């Protein structure tokens, strides 16, 4: 197979959201002497296209989640090779994200995670019902550029304020940008609690994250 054919096979395997087939196609690409950076680009460009399709509601959340799983499977094969060659994959930035304590509504957060990954961010997803201390501890471990906290309920959004206060108290406030969002949060509230960014919906939040990173 030519290089183009190998990369096309990788793209097709990835688009079928098949983890095993993507892993295999990535291995075949390496065996065929394809530059791992090129193979990674195929995956990142394709997932970006999927992200755009999702913003137009041409595909849906589970498709993006499955694609993200397949991408991770492909990267497990490609990344060690990249490291051997000391090549670096570029990410737009690192985001630590979670739904605040007391709130189990994580669909909006999951949508944002998949769209951020599709745009090329590295995302550490803490899931739902995440206590403030956990946000902070994980931030110290992963050193993200942005901490993003989501709240759907009016009664859980005070946790976002609490997170900012906690970071201030520890002297970490300037170390991270803090983004907030979710059904109970408005730009007005975000400003009131001193957040750096707010997105009303996932596509808007991705743009806000890009702006925060570029500052």
């Amino acid at each position: 197979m030519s290089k183009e054919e190998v990369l096309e096979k990788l793209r097709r395997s990835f688009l079928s959201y098949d983890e095993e087939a993507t892993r295999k196609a990535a291995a075949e690409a390496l065996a065929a002497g394809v530059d791992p950076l090129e193979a990674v680009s195929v995956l990142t460009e394709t997932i970006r296209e999927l992200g755009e399709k999702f913003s137009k509601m041409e595909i849906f959340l589970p498709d993006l989640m499955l694609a993200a799983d397949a991408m991770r499977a492909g990267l497990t094969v490609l990344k060690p090779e990249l490291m051997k060659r000391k090549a670096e994959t570029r990410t737009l930035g690192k985001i630590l994200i979670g739904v605040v304590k007391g709130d189990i509504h994580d669909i909006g957060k999951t949508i944002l995670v998949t769209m951020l990954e599709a745009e090329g961010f590295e995302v550490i997803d803490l899931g739902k019902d995440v206590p403030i201390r956990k946000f902070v501890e994980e931030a110290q471990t992963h050193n993200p550029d942005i901490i993003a906290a989501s709240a759907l309920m009016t009664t859980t959004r005070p946790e976002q304020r609490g997170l900012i206060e906690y970071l201030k108290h520890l002297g970490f406030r300037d170390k991270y940008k803090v983004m907030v969002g979710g059904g109970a949060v408005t730009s007005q509230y975000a400003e009131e609690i001193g957040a750096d960014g707010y997105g009303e919906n996932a596509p808007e939040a991705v743009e806000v994250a890009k702006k925060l990173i570029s500052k």
Partner: protein
Amino acid sequence: MGKLRKNWKIWGLATNFRFVTLRVGVELSRSRVWELWRRAETGPLCPEREFDLKRFYPAVKRLVKEYDITYDPETVIPTDNTLIDDAFKAAIDLLLEVGVLCTDTEKIIKLEEGEIKEALATFPKEITVGEGKDAVTLTHRKIEDDKPPRIMGGPNGSPISEEMAIPIYQSYIQEPMLDILFYGTPTTVEGMEVKAGSPVELYAEIANVYWMKEAARRAGRPGICTLGAAGATAAPQILASLVEGGYKKTDAMQLSPPPQLKAPYFMLCEAAHCIEYGCRGVVIPSSIIGGLAGGPEGAAITNIAECIAFAILFNTPWVHPFMPEALHAPGCSAYPPEMAMELLSIAALVKHANLIITSGANSRTFSGLCTDTTFYEIAAPAIGKTVIGANLHAGSARKGYYTDYMAGISARCTGEVGWAAVGLKREDANEMVKTIMAKYEDILPPKGTPPVGKKFQECYDVQTVTPTKEHEDLYKKVKKELENIGLAFKY
């Protein structure tokens, strides 16, 4: 005795060539409910991500294809009876194949076909809520039913300030067409920010029920049914039922399971509270278009399956189909795919199940108050949902995000339009709805920008709890326009 006799019928089921007699008009016994809930501990294990991506979503996709369920933007109110029947069959197949995941144990609660059929056949077709002269009977309506819809209204869980809570609630209750009051979520109580899991949350729920009851007294309808909040745990609902002057057994509680087909233990605890306390629970599942269930069609069959599953698991015949869109419409009933798919879900449920249905004429409008588009956003779904067989729900404005953006005049518009739509045929109503939709389509996201409008205290006289002249005149103008397109108001 007469009432008892009315609720008991002989139901012939040809099972093994002999007829069995079932009780009709009653919910499940406590032992049956516990038998179902026990499955959350004994059912097959399935991690949540595996449930979402390997079990649930592939089944939804396959069934949408197999039954050829399609969303046609040209037909907002479903007129194709085959589509309605197929959507119901697909939903039952989905429920039987996938079951419900208890997210605490990550085990599947499987429901058997016989259990579903029995519950759907035996649940009561009417329930009474509220007390005294303010008691109302909420009934199962049919497609193109000549029985007018009941009207539920209130802030719809959207944020309210403690200063405005009583006048806002009163503005709804004093509307003569309102039958049931729906709660709002206070942002503060006595100046303290309300925070989930804290004692302030408990206190806020107690304060909130007091405010609703006080507003009901001021409006002269002390016995009106108040629908209580869904919290992060069952504790606020329980405490607010136990205190003197709190929720009564004639009130109701919201039961909102997380998407999709999931029953966390705290939700079963809230249902247990309703069952043991003796008040009504209303199932409000959010089947998200573009979310885990996929596109509009997948969300529709999921919504039907969820209404049935949770009616059985929470042991209540009262369900409230609700289908937000993932990116732009967080429960805005006038958003075209959301309206069309909620209508399909309601049609399938009223045609094939004994359930009592309420659904949003305006769960949340995009527009703020005191704008003509907010009334159009209410009118279109109010017509569709009345004709398809639902009772109506009037909620908040500005997507439910902003504090105090809600008012009783929305319930007036919902009720008057709903009553005017009684007797319309689906085809005629569809044309009428499309004409109204054209009046607000330019403000819809992602391209349009909905008008911010005003909040309650800017378009109501707070002391007299009456709409400002500007607000009232605007409603009259829209009403006149609706008359011009053929809607015959009763008064």
